């Protein structure tokens, strides 16, 4: 049985801003742009009381909460804080899988601190983050990644939740499906129309019955409904793709306008690709979000970044809009899989010192 901790910083960017600017502490605050099409990165808990959420358009947030203070993010600072947090994690285990700047899985199965109590380890990590950075984090402690991730959300902010192996069933049976990562509003609606709202309901179905509803996610969802998740904490996440996208202040109307944006997007993507020169490109593609927020992507196999190919893809993808104007354009490349990588990670485990 593994011991997995999921650590999640509480409204990370907003919390850093509140720490560094006392005048923001008692007001609804969001980090993001204020342009007419900007989207919020995150917001504090005061703002959430008004219904403001992460990834919400700034305009909508302002409607919900007219006195919402929106500040620009300071990525450099967030990055430094994130590195410090990762250093704290490294004191407990080398098996750390960062999911983003503010979130990570830790496998503490082999950690001997606190007599191996993952609950106390999580508490100590959160204490260290508070003492060294004056920031709060929440934690979920469970026998696998799936349960740990859901648990970290249970007692947010500044809390933790343990799902011990003997409590897994209790926890999972009543779990609303909407809380499962991968199930958004639409899927949960679909499942509800089938009478499935909790994991217990999913168990009553079969993978065969689930597949038409959730596609390839069916098998994993079925396992989740029993609290089963065998994914390892992966120290080196392998990046699968790199992309760049841009939301325009005013919609683009013609296909020529869209195609004219391609060189700029590709230039930006080339910069990002410099960090991944060791990877082989397998596919390239474009993404369009139309004025009505419908999304289309089109991709082709390609061993290199090919500007003309991208332009052709853009032209075809644009046709799918049937004359709709365009609010967002993106380009991306997907990398070829690394050979034998996962297998190797498990078979060549370099042991480390415990300092």
């Amino acid at each position: 049985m593994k011991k997995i901790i999921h650590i999640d910083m509480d409204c990370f960017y907003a919390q850093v801003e509140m720490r560094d600017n006392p005048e923001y502490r008692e007001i609804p605050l969001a980090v993001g742009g204020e342009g007419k099409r900007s989207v919020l990165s995150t917001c504090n808990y005061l703002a959430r009381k008004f219904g403001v959420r992460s990834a919400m358009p700034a305009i909508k947030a302002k409607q919900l909460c007219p006195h919402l203070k929106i500040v620009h993010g300071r990525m450099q600072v967030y990055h430094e804080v994130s590195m410090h947090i990762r250093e704290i994690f490294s004191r407990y285990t080398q098996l750390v899988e960062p999911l983003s700047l503010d979130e990570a899985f830790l496998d503490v199965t082999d950690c001997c601190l606190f007599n191996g109590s993952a609950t106390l380890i999580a508490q100590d990590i959160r204490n260290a983050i508070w003492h060294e950075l004056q920031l709060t984090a929440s934690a979920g402690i469970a026998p696998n990644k799936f349960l740990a991730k859901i648990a970290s959300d249970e007692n947010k902010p500044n809390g933790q939740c343990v799902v011990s192996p003997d409590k897994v069933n209790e926890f999972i049976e009543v779990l609303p499906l909407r809380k499962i990562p991968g199930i958004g509003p639409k899927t949960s609606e679909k499942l509800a129309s089938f009478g499935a709202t909790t994991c217990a309901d999913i168990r009553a179905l079969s993978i065969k019955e689930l597949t038409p509803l959730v596609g390839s996610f069916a098998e994993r969802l079925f396992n989740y409904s029993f609290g089963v998740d065998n994914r390892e904490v992966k120290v080196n996440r392998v990046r699968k793709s790199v992309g760049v996208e841009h939301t325009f202040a005013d919609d683009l109307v013609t296909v020529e306008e869209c195609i004219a944006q391609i060189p700029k997007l590709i230039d930006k993507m080339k910069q990002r690709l410099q960090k991944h020169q060791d990877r082989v490109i397998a596919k390239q593609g474009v993404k369009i979000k139309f004025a009505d927020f419908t999304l289309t992507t089109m991709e082709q196999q390609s061993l290199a970044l090919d500007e003309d190919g991208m332009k052709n893809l853009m032209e075809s993808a644009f046709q799918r809009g049937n004359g709709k104007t365009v609010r967002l354009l993106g380009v991306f490349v997907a990398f070829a899989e690394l050979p034998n990588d996962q297998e190797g990670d498990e078979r060549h485990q370099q042991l480390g010192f415990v300092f």
Partner: protein
Amino acid sequence: MKFSLSRESLLKPLLLVSGAVERKSTLPILSNILFDVVDQTLTLTATDLELEMVASTPVNNQGENGKVTIPAKKLLDICKSLPEDSLLSFESNAEAITISTGRSKYSLSTLAATDFPNIEEWKGDVEFKIQKSDLLRLIESTHFSMANQDVRYYLNGMSIETEGNEIRSVATDGHRLAICKISNPELALPARQVIVPRKGILEIIRLLDPVEEEVQLFMGSNHIRIIDSEYSFTSKLVDGRFPDYRRVLPRNGDKVLETDKDQLRQVLSRASILSNEKFKGVRLNFASSELKITANNPEQEQAEEVLEISYPYEDLEIGFNVSYVLDVLNAIKESAVKFTLADANSSVVIEGSETSEAIYVVMPMRL
């Protein structure tokens, strides 16, 4: 400013200080070298805000005393490619400096010396003299075990420790650890420990020659400085707590193997050809009269080597990253090496058979 000097008397200090010049800086002035002319002496300073290098050379000063900063790389490239023994004349005006010799004339744009960053004033509280060859040996024996860009930022450097008549260097990346101790009965040093950043250590190696000449070493709470007759080198320290190496030294080793270093090194480097390129794992099978070394790669190709040894213990199979072991064998100067082993999950201690000036600890790999 107006002064002249020979190409050679400029090139030497220029090469010395240019190691500290930041190549990819967002602050343009860090790509420049500060030229400070006072009477008949030119002092050159370069810094990347973490390291600072200062060197001086005599000049024939034909104008006022003054300071200016000059693009380092271009100046160095020009100096290098001018003919030997050229006499270089420098003359500065508002925003440029002209270097002329014979029929050659180069004008480089300058930035104001007032904007050049100074490392803040500090006082060393530990100060001692050490032979260049000793300092170099101390650092070269362990530097390869330093971490590189680890989140445990305090491992991205070398711990230098003083105590009584002993100076220690310790480096570890979390998988392997190296310690070197040198002592000098003339020293009486306070117990101090500092972490010198990786870039500083690599720069010190570049600066030192293995000769019997002394340099002066200063350690403060945030800086370390080395002063030589030709230059002064300063590095900021890493602010952090270095792990205690004593906690990592294994105590359970009860199987000792002594063997010829070069032979073992040859065998390991041959076998490594067919190890997994990324993980570099090799398997060592110790038996009473032979050591079998095997490696294989994802293409299922296999290497096998056998060495005759004397190993009067229970058989042991243990895996290692072969690069870690080869780094150690390359660093040990003696011709025979000693391995002290416990079991497949415990670290091995490797050291020279004769002295134990340097000790290496390597954690195994599960294969």
